[in-house]
């Protein structure tokens, strides 16, 4: 018999993989039947409300919960930060109240008496001199490559500028939280809104003093995470404690303001950069000092990855300074910290092109030799330019026409890893032909369930709906946390491996029974075929298993070519800028994205559309606004924390770059990359339209008008 080798099918042999397939949980979600942690209502469930600190920094002087405990309907009160504890940023939870109704819980919160002693705070993330005077800075390293001074002397074009990108919040629509219910004294059942089903049980068990084996974590649906939901969190543990105290299940979800304040932020970065090129436009020098904040820890975007993607620039100085602010701590935000790196790199390159009087496209193209994937970028740039009609639309910077509304073009590029995460699954093939799989993974909305079903259905020659996918519970085999674009690779590899192993066992049974050669067999359309001719149905084949189901474990990642890592990606923007109001409108956005082998192109495109739209958000409108005097996050609600609406996105064009060379690479993660270069591409388009760099994203009307007042970049 020919050697059996784990591999994907030849591209042309696929019936499902690579097509457009509706997500298998789509109807549940669209009709409101999908149950999130925030929706769990087991009998007697109590509702929790939070008392939070409102200010920059303080010490809790006293807290009195006696009246709260006596409030009608209140069943339990938990103090997070009692007398003597420091509260170091706006939104810090001081106490939580669980009551029969949410309204009664609010009554209980109002009945808590707390006094604070104010402490000095610092919340400005951009003001480096001020932060230095206030002793809020710390050096985060510097390093050199080549000889910057000599190269600057030799350079033909030199540009110096200021760039930045503000802190934003994750702003998950389902806030962080859980529903906790005890079974006796030592068994806890948690419905947790989490990106980490397999890894959070122990985080409850430790602080609660119970065995990790006694904590059940369930998450069938999660209403957004974006990198902020990997932990049980202090409020998850307190939810369990409230439940224990009250002897009833408790649901504790952060309120909207608290979600914005402490549910996770993306660190900011501001940079002074000098860039230089030779007469032909080859970039020869990068010299940057950047700073920003991640919260009290005082970090900023990483030093080691600047200039972003263009690591081959021969002469380089770089230096980073962190600012410690009294603001909610950072968490991984989709593609950390690439959007910020891109925002302070590709904008600089674009300004260099402007200074040279060159077409930005040509300068990016010329310098691709300094990137990790010059060939892929070049192809993707060509495709993108065609889609947006770059050649016809291009004009020199500042020549955006129009009297009050100027139009411009911009581009940027990005990269990401996207290797497969470590996941195990148990695939069961039942004697009646039913197929199901179990794994402790989660579907963030990326289509995890669907790609698993497609992988097994393709392998067994079945329909997508013939496969039952069981995920979202920590009693299932361990799966990777979903962060870093490692899940589709993480789950598809093990399922292909397990599926093939099961299929080969079934082939052996069919070969023996029907006297055909096992290596002549294939599975297609619910049948087992030998050299293209039907031998038996899938059900008949599975009937040969006997009374017990066939159970196969799939593992990954493995070095067998099913998955790999590393993507490029190019985005282009066409915008209009109203120079009287400062309002930027998106006309068109183009994304050209590679990601290896695509399992479901419909959900893959959704990821890219979503990346573009989140990119529009942080490029144009969303940011955390801190009040320096009070230390408070003053726009922590959905009216004032501005996200784009359906009419704000312009025309979006997504091209999945997938020549055979991509298919051959196997599956590579896609979630992060499409959100990275959107901001820089939009900023560059605004600079091209107006001839002025608006240095800091988001490019709010105020920042646009200020930049226009200041004149040329």
């Amino acid at each position: 018999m020919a050697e059996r080798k784990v591999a994907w099918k030849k591209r042309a042999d696929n019936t499902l993989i690579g097509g457009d397939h509706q997500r298998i949980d789509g109807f549940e979600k669209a009709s409101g039947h999908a149950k999130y942690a925030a929706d769990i209502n087991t009998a007697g469930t109590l509702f929790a409300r939070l008392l939070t600190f409102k200010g920059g920094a303080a010490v809790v002087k006293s807290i009195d919960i006696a009246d709260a405990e006596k409030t009608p309907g209140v069943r339990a009160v938990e103090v997070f930060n009692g007398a003597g504890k420091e509260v170091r940023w706006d939104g810090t939870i001081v106490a939580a109240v669980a009551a029969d109704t949410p309204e009664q819980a609010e009554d209980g919160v109002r009945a808590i008496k707390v006094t604070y002693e104010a402490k000095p705070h610092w919340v400005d993330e951009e003001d480096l001199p001020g932060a230095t005077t206030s002793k809020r800075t710390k050096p985060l390293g510097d390093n050199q490559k080549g000889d910057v001074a000599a190269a600057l002397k030799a350079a033909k074009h030199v540009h110096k500028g200021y760039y930045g990108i503000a802190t934003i919040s994750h702003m998950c629509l389902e806030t962080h939280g859980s529903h906790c219910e005890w079974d006796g004294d030592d068994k806890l059942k948690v419905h947790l809104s989490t990106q980490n089903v397999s890894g959070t049980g122990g985080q409850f068990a430790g602080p609660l003093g119970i065995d990790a084996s006694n904590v059940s974590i369930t998450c069938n649906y999660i209403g957004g995470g974006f990198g902020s939901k990997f932990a049980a969190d202090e409020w998850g543990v307190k939810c369990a404690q409230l439940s224990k105290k009250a002897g009833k299940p408790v649901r504790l979800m952060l309120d909207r303001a608290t979600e914005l304040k402490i549910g996770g932020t993306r660190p900011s970065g501001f940079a002074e950069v000098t860039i230089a090129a030779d007469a032909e436009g080859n970039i020869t020098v990068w010299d940057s000092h950047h700073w920003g904040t991640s919260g009290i820890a005082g970090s900023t975007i990483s030093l080691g990855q600047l200039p972003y993607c263009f690591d081959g620039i021969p002469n380089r100085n770089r230096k980073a300074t962190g600012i410690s602010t009294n603001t909610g701590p950072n968490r991984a935000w989709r593609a950390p910290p690439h959007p910020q790196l891109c925002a302070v790199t590709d904008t600089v390159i674009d300004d260099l092109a402007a200074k040279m009087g060159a077409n930005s496209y040509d300068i990016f193209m010329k310098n691709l030799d300094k990137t990790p994937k010059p060939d892929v970028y070049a192809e993707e740039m060509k495709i993108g330019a065609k889609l947006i009609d770059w050649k016809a639309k291009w004009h020199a910077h500042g020549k955006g026409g129009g009297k009050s509304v100027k139009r411009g073009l911009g581009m940027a590029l990005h990269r990401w890893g996207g290797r497969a995460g470590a996941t195990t699954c148990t695939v069961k093939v039942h004697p009646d032909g039913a197929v199901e799989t179990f794994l402790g993974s989660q579907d963030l909305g990326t289509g995890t369930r669907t790609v698993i079903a497609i992988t097994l259905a393709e392998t067994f020659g079945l329909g997508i709906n013939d496969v039952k996918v069981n995920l979202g519970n920590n009693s299932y085999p361990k799966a990777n946390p979903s962060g870093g674009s490692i899940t589709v690779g993480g789950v598809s590899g093990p399922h292909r491996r397990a599926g093939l192993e099961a299929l080969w066992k079934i082939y052996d049974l069919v070969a023996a029974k029907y006297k055909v050669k096992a290596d002549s067999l294939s599975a297609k359309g619910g049948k087992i075929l030998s050299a293209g001719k039907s031998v038996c149905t899938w059900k008949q084949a599975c009937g040969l298993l006997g009374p017990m189901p066939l159970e196969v474990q799939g593992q990954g990642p493995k070095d067998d070519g099913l998955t790999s890592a590393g993507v490029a990606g190019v985005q282009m923007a066409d915008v209009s800028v109203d120079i009287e109001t400062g309002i930027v409108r998106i006309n068109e956005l183009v994304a050209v994205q590679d990601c290896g082998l695509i399992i479901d192109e419909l959900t893959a495109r959704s990821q890219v559309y979503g990346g573009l739209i989140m990119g529009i958000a942080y490029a144009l409108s969303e940011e955390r606004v801190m009040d320096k005097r009070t230390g408070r996050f003053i726009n922590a609600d959905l009216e004032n924390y501005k996200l784009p609406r359906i009419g704000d996105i312009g025309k979006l064009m997504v091209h999945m770059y997938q020549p055979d060379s991509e298919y051959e690479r196997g599956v590579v993660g896609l979630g992060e990359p499409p959100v990275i270069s959107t901001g820089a591409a939009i900023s560059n388009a605004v600079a091209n339209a107006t001839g002025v760099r608006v240095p800091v994203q988001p490019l709010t009307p105020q920042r646009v008008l200020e930049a226009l007042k200041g004149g040329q970049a």
Partner: protein
Amino acid sequence: MRDRDDQNRSGPDFNRRDFLKGSAAAATATAMATQGSEEAVAANLKTNVFAAAAQNVTLNVNGKDHTVKVEPRVTLLHVLRNNLNLTGCKEVDERSADGADTVLIDGKTVLAGSRLAIECEDKKIHTVESLRRGEKVDAVVAGFVKHDAMQCGFCTPGFVVATRAFLDKNPKASLADIQKGLGGNICRCGTYQGITMCALEISKGGK
């Protein structure tokens, strides 16, 4: 008997006599000590005033009457989610700035988080769950699935209800109409493209 059978609390018709009747009934039922002061307040108000105690409210939801005992301050959103377990409408922002709590009341879109449950008696309330019952699936639900107009799915039910109501009112909506008419809802994952395509397909591009 319900407390407020014969009353209309929603308009200027409300008067003190009605209030006293309702208030007395509530007070009898719950022995409220605050009755006197509430009467005094009510005497000076020509607007809706209710006793603070929990009372029976009957809501017609998805074609069925449900009687729940809730305080007058409780929103329709909380009754739907917490009492009736109809969790398709989501609580995303206390100010209802996002549309995730969109339901239909007498065919019109209403943000359930900005309406008190007691205001909704004698009205026909429909939630997103009514748009899919077994095999019977509304075209908007199916269109959202077809165009993958969802990711995490948390804003999706609100968007589905908003889209259904919008297309009922504007069956030939153009792209510009859709972009304006569905601007009351927020998605964080960025699913506007699929939603637009779904609505455009059902409205046949406005032609």
